[in-house]
């Protein structure tokens, strides 16, 4: 099994960070190990997830879509219905609660599209923690509403002006801030990436998605699905959706990467398709990089998938062949976004639309006795203006 040994998933993972942060990282690992087996902590977290975030999330049978595609039954795991509108809240409530138990009074976080920033700001408001979010200046301009949401929640948002001013630069700046102040501050990392213990810890907090989905599909179908599909940037909703299906060898796991304008162009964020092994942001994994080992600027219509790496556990699942990763272009994702809205009345996040796009390609090839689960990682309100612009309508928030 892909259990974690010294923060490794096969050769991937590890903990490659400056010495200044090592003491805090070692402490975090020890505290997490302690609380993850602590019944009171788990009970408190479950109460927050159920009473505040609205779990369990629905496993919805998309009947109209299934009929239209003429193959497998398509089920949607509705993480978009969680409080704050995405799966990010699962991880954030876990980490914010842990931070409180560790005696921290302040949390910091990076954000790309703003979903993780909003979720962190929300948890901080609820649990009485001070919160500061780092967001690329470019992303702030793309996601004005989310920036204001964070402000409403009492969070200070810092514009990151270094590098290409997007998600990876926001991670850089949050790490720098953590190196500056860690005694009262926890870094709520938003995906299954970064130095150990983050990839393991975030996965554990997101694994609730597949824990529920597995039980729900068995109740509805009486058997396991043939395929489980999720979009992958850093990979937190995907690992959460895959995790409890990993031991079920008959279930195919498919991660959908953002191909942007195509994997044969420079404007892509498809790490498995175009990246190679490297060490960055604390982990050994696959990264988009140039011939000299400089991290490449990446592009996707989706700010949430606009990251040049992939979590180490995904790199391992790819390497071992247990999961498959496929690229999905902007155009395919936008078409799927529109398709789901018209067919099922669900406006999903443009990130999740990457997974829908692959389900559309696949469903017809399977029999009506089979089922597919697709994770709808978030809702799409935040993307409406960008999709309109993509279609040539001059709409601004």
């Amino acid at each position: 099994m892909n259990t974690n040994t010294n923060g490794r998933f096969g050769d991937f993972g590890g903990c490659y960070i400056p010495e200044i942060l090592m003491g805090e990282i070692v402490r975090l690992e020890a505290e997490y190990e302690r609380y993850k087996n602590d019944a009171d902590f788990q009970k408190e977290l479950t109460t927050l997830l159920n009473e505040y975030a609205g779990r369990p999330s629905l496993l919805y049978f998309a009947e109209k879509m299934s009929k239209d595609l003429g193959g497998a039954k398509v089920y949607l795991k509705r993480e978009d219905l969680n409080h704050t509108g995405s799966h990010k809240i699962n991880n954030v409530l876990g980490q914010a609660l842990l931070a409180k138990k560790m005696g921290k009074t302040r949390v910091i976080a990076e954000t790309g599209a703003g979903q993780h920033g909003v979720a962190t700001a929300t948890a901080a408001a609820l649990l009485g923690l001070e919160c500061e979010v780092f967001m690329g200046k470019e992303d702030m301009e793309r996601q004005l509403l989310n920036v204001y949401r964070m402000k409403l929640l009492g969070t200070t948002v810092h514009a990151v002006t270094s590098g290409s001013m997007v998600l990876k630069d926001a991670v850089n700046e949050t790490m720098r801030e953590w190196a500056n102040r860690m005694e009262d501050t926890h870094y709520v990392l938003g995906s299954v990436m970064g130095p150990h213990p983050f990839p393991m810890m975030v996965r554990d907090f997101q694994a609730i998605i597949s824990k529920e989905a597995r039980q729900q599909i068995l109740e509805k179908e009486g058997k396991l699905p043939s395929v489980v599909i999720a979009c992958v940037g850093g990979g937190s909703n995907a690992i959460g959706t895959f995790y409890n299906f990993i031991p079920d060898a008959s279930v195919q796991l498919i991660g959908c990467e953002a191909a942007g304008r195509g994997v044969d162009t420079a404007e892509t964020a498809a790490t498995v398709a175009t990246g190679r092994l490297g060490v960055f942001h604390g982990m050994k994994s696959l990264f988009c990089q140039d011939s000299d080992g400089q991290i490449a600027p990446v592009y996707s219509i989706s700010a949430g998938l606009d990251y040049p790496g992939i979590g180490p556990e995904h790199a391992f699942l790819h390497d071992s062949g247990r999961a498959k990763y496929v690229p999905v272009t902007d155009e395919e994702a936008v078409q799927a976004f529109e398709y789901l809205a018209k067919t099922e009345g669900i406006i999903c996040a443009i990130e999740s639309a990457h997974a829908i796009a692959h389900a559309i390609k696949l469903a017809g090839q399977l029999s009506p006795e089979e089922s597919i689960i697709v994770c709808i990682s978030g809702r799409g309100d935040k993307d409406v203006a960008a999709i309109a612009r993509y279609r040539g309508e001059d709409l601004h928030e």
Partner: protein
Amino acid sequence: MSRIANAFKDKAFVAFLTGGDPDIAATEEFVMQIVKAGADVIEIGIPFSDPIAEGPVIQSASVRALAAGTTLEGLFQLVSRLRQKTEIPLLFMGYLNPIFNYGYEAFFKRCATVGVDGIIIADLPFEESAEVRQYASVSGVDLISMVAPTSDSARIKQIATDATGFVYVVSSKGVTGVRSGFSDNLNELLAEVKASTNVPAAVGFGIHTPEQAAAMAKQADGVIVGSAIVKIIEKYGREAGEKLYEYVKEMKQAL
């Protein structure tokens, strides 16, 4: 005696500049000015796209160096040329990915061939250093370890015991860049390092005035100055040579 050990016979002034900022030819000239001014060790920064341990000054230097087309190959050739002119210890300082990407074995062989004496890797903590250390050691290149005010006694002991070249003692929390105050426990940190190793200990991060350098040198075997030097290069560009000479001379005299 290795070049590094030799450089620490008296209090050493360690100067950092980013390789290729504003271009490789300028770096070559700047290094020679700094050597002439009396520096004892030179650290050449390998520019990286995402330098997470750097403050704004060295971040900007990385941007300038990469924009000028600086590559590892260009830096190896730079060191090779510098080695014809000086016997000063030349170190690389950088991040792991460009080195990993080059291939550890090939990288350290090349370091040894061109005359790089040691390397500091900002995002390689002790726990992960074995994969690099074996190749560094075979090639006779010192892997310089860092300790920080946040390192506990057990870590300090572990790191210092395995240290080669010198121990890089980080003066305070945060990223690189000039500052007025340093960690309260710096003297104890230095004492703990010295109790576990015979290799010299040099303090870096934030030092920029002769007074700070003089105060640090009372406890440490050397002081490391980076951002203050890079700031001069930022301000004067290709014309920075003379200003660098004056600054380094003043700093060295303060030790």
